[in-house]
């Protein structure tokens, strides 16, 4: 997994060589089934194991419930269910990524956390127009990593949609 941790800008040949390291953005990558996804590391507060949630009445299907994160009540979102796949059956191996967006804290339930990647912003490819498919909004971009595609999750959209889902 760590065999080719890319040096900054190493994901693709730098088109120009300069004395300063080009700015990179870091993402935490994680697995949902076979797919690899990434979230902006600046939004990640911590990563923790699965703990039992308390169900919220009349919540959308992709909200597992809420947990106690050292005294604050944090909702857990089943990202797999959020992406329209079947709900995750959480096990002790499941991982929750706690993210902060704005003033909100939310936990994302994922199968496993893989790596931290550094990529140059211009390496991020836009989502191609897939025709009809509203879900593409959930992603902020695509990036190639060792011949594999990593989908970058758009947290802004995820959270705004979450709020809409609970209203």
């Amino acid at each position, binding site marked *: 997994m760590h065999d080719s941790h890319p040096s900054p800008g190493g994901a693709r040949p730098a088109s120009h060589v300069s004395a300063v390291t080009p700015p990179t953005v870091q993402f935490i990558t994680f697995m949902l089934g076979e797919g690899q996804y990434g979230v902006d590391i600046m939004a990640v507060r911590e990563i923790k194991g699965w703990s039992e949630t308390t169900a*919220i009445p009349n919540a959308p299907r992709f909200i597992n419930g809420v947990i106690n994160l050292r005294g*604050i009540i944090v*909702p857990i979102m089943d990202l797999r269910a959020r992406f329209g796949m079947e709900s995750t059956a959480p096990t002790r191996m499941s991982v929750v990524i706690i993210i902060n967006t704005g003033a*909100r804290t939310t936990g994302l339930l994922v199968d496993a956390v893989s790596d931290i990647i550094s990529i140059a912003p211009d390496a991020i490819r836009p989502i191609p127009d897939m025709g009809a498919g509203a879900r593409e909004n959930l992603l902020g971009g695509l990036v190639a990593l060792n011949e594999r595609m990593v989908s970058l999750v758009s947290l802004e959209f995820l959270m705004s949609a979450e709020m809409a889902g609970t209203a």
Partner: protein
Amino acid sequence: MSGNVFDHLKSTYFQECSELLDQVYTHLTALDDGDSDPDTVHGIFRGIHSIKGGGGAFGFDRMVAFAHVFETLLDLLRDGKVVLNKDLLGLLLRATDALSDLIAAERTGVPAAAGFETAVRAELDEAASLPSAPTPSAPVRSVAAQPASGQPGLYRIQLQPHETLFKNASEPLLLMRELRRLGPITVVADLARLPGLDALDPESAYIGWTIELTTDASAARIEEIFEFVNDQCDLTITPAGVSAVPELEPEPEEAAPTPVASAVAVATTKPDSPDARRAEQPAAAQTVRVDVEKVDRLVNLVGELVINQAMLVQLGATLPSDMCPGLITGLETLSQHLRELQEGVMAIRTQPVKSVFSRMPRLVRELSSQLGKEAKLFISGEGTEIDKTVIEQLADPLTHLLRNAIDHGIEQPSDRVAQGKPAQGRIHLAAEHRSGRIVIEVSDDGRGIDRARVLARARTRGLVEPDAQPSEEEIDNLIFLPGFSTAETVSNISGRGVGMDVVRRNIQALGGRVTVQARQGAGSRFLLSLPLTLAILDGMIVAVGRESYIVPLTNIVESLRPRRQDINAVVGSGDVVAIRGEYVPLLYLAKHFGVPDAVTDASHGIVVVVENEGTGQVGLVVDELLGQQQVVVKSLEANYGEVEGIGGATILGNGRVALILDIAGLRSASAPGRASRGETRRNSNGHAVAALQ
């Protein structure tokens, strides 16, 4: 100085202003009640003076100029050159109102309308018989005062420290601060003995001071201050006769009032006053200004500790008791200390309701003059303490209630006289502690509630079934329904039908209840009953399937396990349970919240009968009762959102989250139960009914 520090100073100043204004209003009210104590006028003067001094430091010229004119009049009043009468008192009140608006304008940065204060200012000038307004920078000399009783005496204190004074780590500044606690001081430094720089020994003492102190304290009290430095300085204290405060221009030291200085100002407002109202003030109390956020963090931390402790106790209970006997006693002591700690921390958050009550007299004054009515507000129990967050939320409901009292309650003076009442209406605003809650009462001696009209209005609005015959109490409570208003004309004060239901909603949101008692023609009485804090709640933990919910104890009427035959289905409305001949609608929590694996037959579970203001009783069907506990209320909204029927969340001893039920919210989402006692019915929940079935 960085802008940040300056802003901080500014906000401190505005905080002080509002406290000082509160004091001024209190003193003015005392004057109105016939208090002739010269200290009361002094108190007003001091308040305005401090506001002016601080304002000058920040360059709030307009406000300072106004305060200056105001101060001039107060000074004359203080010296007895101007006689206090009803007109003057009214002027002082209006001037304080105007000053408070000018301060608000500086705070918000929105300048008051041009010439806004001109009229009041002209009146002040006239009352002070000055030809024109003096420029703000013109010094105002106090006129020599008559030696009236209680007039402060002037002392001249000459202090020449010896070298040893500094070597013994004494500090003349501290002595002067100590003196200032006794009264206003003027300090003049005597630099005669100061040598040239080349001859200066930095560790020696050269400077002497002449201090003029105006105080009513005895010479002995002054000597006391110098008790420890007596042999380390040349000290002479000479009474210089009776005098007024020597200098009114703000001295640099006074110009920027520090928190300490203002605390002292409070303390000096006659601590030995026989007036009980002032005795409630924290006389001479040492105060510290603390950011609310810091206190909230403490409260949260203590909440965490309480949860931790509950966890430990739960774990401890699973151990065989002979394994570690010390542990159990240790845990018990811990929980005792924790409870004390919790109470202590919660007490930091409490504040006297005075901070919100003190805004009300002005409201009453302005409204009654606007409506051509005469009303006087009597306030009692303003020292009653309640959680700060509750206080902040009280202003709106109280404003509504007072508006209502003046607009709908108090009659026109001529009508009142015709009915044999005094022309001036009386409104009482009172607060007191009653069995762990605070009760606020707003009562007036106006016309009360015209039940016939209220009922007729409710019928035309469809709030009451045409053939229903509600009881008197029920009629009175109709005024809390949304969309209800009996005002003949819609005024801009009240009468848009948004008043009373907002009051009820606000109070309920605070976990309180509001009731009204009225006698036609003799006035009405509104009682607000509020919890002392919002952060902690007594709750019953109930189990539904694998979930636990907290039912606020204040809502619970009783709990019972019904017999099979007591449960009946009402066609189209759901089930009801018969309790002593009454039919109470049932709400299956498991069904309502979609919880799997729960008891679905009420006779196998427990029915918790809950009640909320104005919504009647409902029986919640749960699996079992798990016990009663104090829980720390956490926000669910912060990270998630509002959930119908859920008021918040808490963390149980096992570290898991439990949701706290919001009975009012549950109830509005389950309207069918109203059938049994449905004299009053809201129209707005049609969709909620549909959603439930």
